[in-house]
């Protein structure tokens, strides 16, 4: 990977500098820029619409000029093993929260009261805050957030030159396990939806028919169908009142059809295997072949006899 020296350089020589990445237009590699900004403890900005450049860049410069807090560190008390992502933490800028996820091993407690201690430098002065874990509230999705950041970091680690093929395999196994445990989509996992309920009435026969379909906006149906205007679908994809009425009517029609089907009763299955007809056809074919094969010889012999006579 070409980006590798970059990574190394950032980690080693960052010092007091911060890397801020800025992408304008649709071409920039957003994955790389996000990762580089993270490694450089900075922030990233993407501007998709060129008319927004001025405004967004001004906001970015304001933001860079006024970091709310730098040199953020995070310590976990009360447990011997804790995993924190991202590592190191980025600086805090106005309007851009720093989200860190931590996993602790609750089987290895220490004597200290479980707490998270955050330190940083704010306006040239040290800032320190302690959050007691006893005050924390459980929330869904925290583990997923942690797992996602862990996978991201592992993927980055996998690219370093120190990691050989065996190391890459071990990291892949870690990524796979993290993704499976947390039901996440990753490079190695995907989600599969399985519908176990059969919603179609098994007694109903399948039908094939044309369904109304719209042409792309601005295309005239007359130009395509030789003056024949096919049935068009709803002209407006938005659900307005009229669409609701139509949907309700369709639902009611379906219900009525189902009720009618119930009143109609159960159809009688087709019950002729038809093997005798098929067998007869086969036998006729064999007889035709036999007759054809013999006829040549028969007529040939008759002709010989006539010639002899």
């Amino acid at each position, binding site marked *: 990977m070409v980006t590798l020296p970059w990574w190394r350089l950032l980690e080693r020589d960052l010092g007091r500098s911060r890397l801020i990445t800025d992408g304008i237009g649709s071409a920039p590699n957003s994955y790389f820029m996000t990762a580089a900004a993270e490694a450089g403890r900075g922030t990233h900005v993407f501007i998709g619409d060129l008319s927004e450049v001025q405004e967004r860049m001004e906001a970015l410069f304001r933001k860079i000029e006024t970091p709310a807090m730098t040199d953020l560190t995070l310590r976990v008390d009360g447990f011997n093993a804790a995993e924190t992502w991202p590592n190191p933490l980025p600086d805090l800028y106005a309007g851009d929260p720093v989200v860190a996820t931590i996993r602790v091993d609750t089987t290895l407690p220490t004597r200290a009261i479980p707490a998270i201690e955050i330190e940083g430098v704010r306006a040239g002065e040290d800032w320190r805050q302690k959050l007691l874990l006893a005050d924390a509230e459980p929330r869904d999705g925290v583990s997923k957030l942690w797992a996602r950041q862990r996978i991201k970091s592992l993927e980055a680690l996998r690219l370093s030159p120190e990691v050989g093929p065996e190391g890459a395999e071990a990291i892949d196994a870690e990524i796979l396990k993290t993704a499976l445990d947390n039901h996440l989509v990753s490079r190695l996992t995907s989600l599969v939806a399985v519908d176990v309920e059969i919603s179609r009435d098994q007694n109903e026969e399948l039908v094939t028919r044309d369904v109304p379909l719209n042409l792309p906006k601005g295309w005239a149906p007359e130009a395509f169908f030789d003056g024949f205007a096919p049935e068009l679908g709803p002209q407006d994809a938005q659900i307005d009142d009229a669409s609701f009425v139509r949907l309700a009517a369709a639902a009611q029609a379906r219900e009525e059809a189902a009720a009618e089907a119930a009143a109609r009763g159960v159809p*009688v299955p087709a019950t002729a295997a038809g093997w005798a007809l098929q067998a007869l056809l086969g036998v006729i074919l064999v007889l035709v072949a036999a007759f054809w094969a013999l006829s040549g010889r028969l007529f040939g012999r008759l002709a010989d006899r006539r010639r002899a006579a």
Partner: protein
Amino acid sequence: MIRRATMMRGKALAIAALAVAGVGITASALWIPAKAALGQHLLESAWQRAQAGEGDSRPWDWADIRPIARLHAPRLGQSQIVLDQASGEAMAWGPGYVQGTAPLGAPGLSAAAAHRDTHFAFLKDLEIGDVLELETADGRRLKYQVRESRVVDSRLWTFPIDRDGPDVLALATCWPFDVLEPGPERFILFADRI
């Protein structure tokens, strides 16, 4: 001379192709009654497992059919294992319960169907007043007496939905019995529980 030899060879090939096709078609046709007869034997052990109360009584691992009852016609010496559905695949192996009608042996009208030229060919020889016996998977042995037969047009007639009336068993097959081509007419035989 060369042309004559080529023509001869072409003719021989055509004859061979005809003969092979004929034999193939006949064999695949005869496979249908063979499968119908074979199927009942293959289903025997699955039926015994179903009677023993085993939940998964599929006759073979990849089967999507399972035996749910056994139908006897004592006077004709007929005995057939009935499958849980009357789809084309199921009816290749045995008579099928018509899904949507009342469960076999329960109140209301329940129906079973089979091909007229395999399993239900014997319906032709049943008479009004004949006794049929239905063995269910839960071990009951129910008796039915043939009440009436009717020929219906399957495009117009359907099994009425009746789930709480008296227990009636309807057996359905194609009509007429001795023609070769399939048609819309069906022969329905109604038997009342006695």
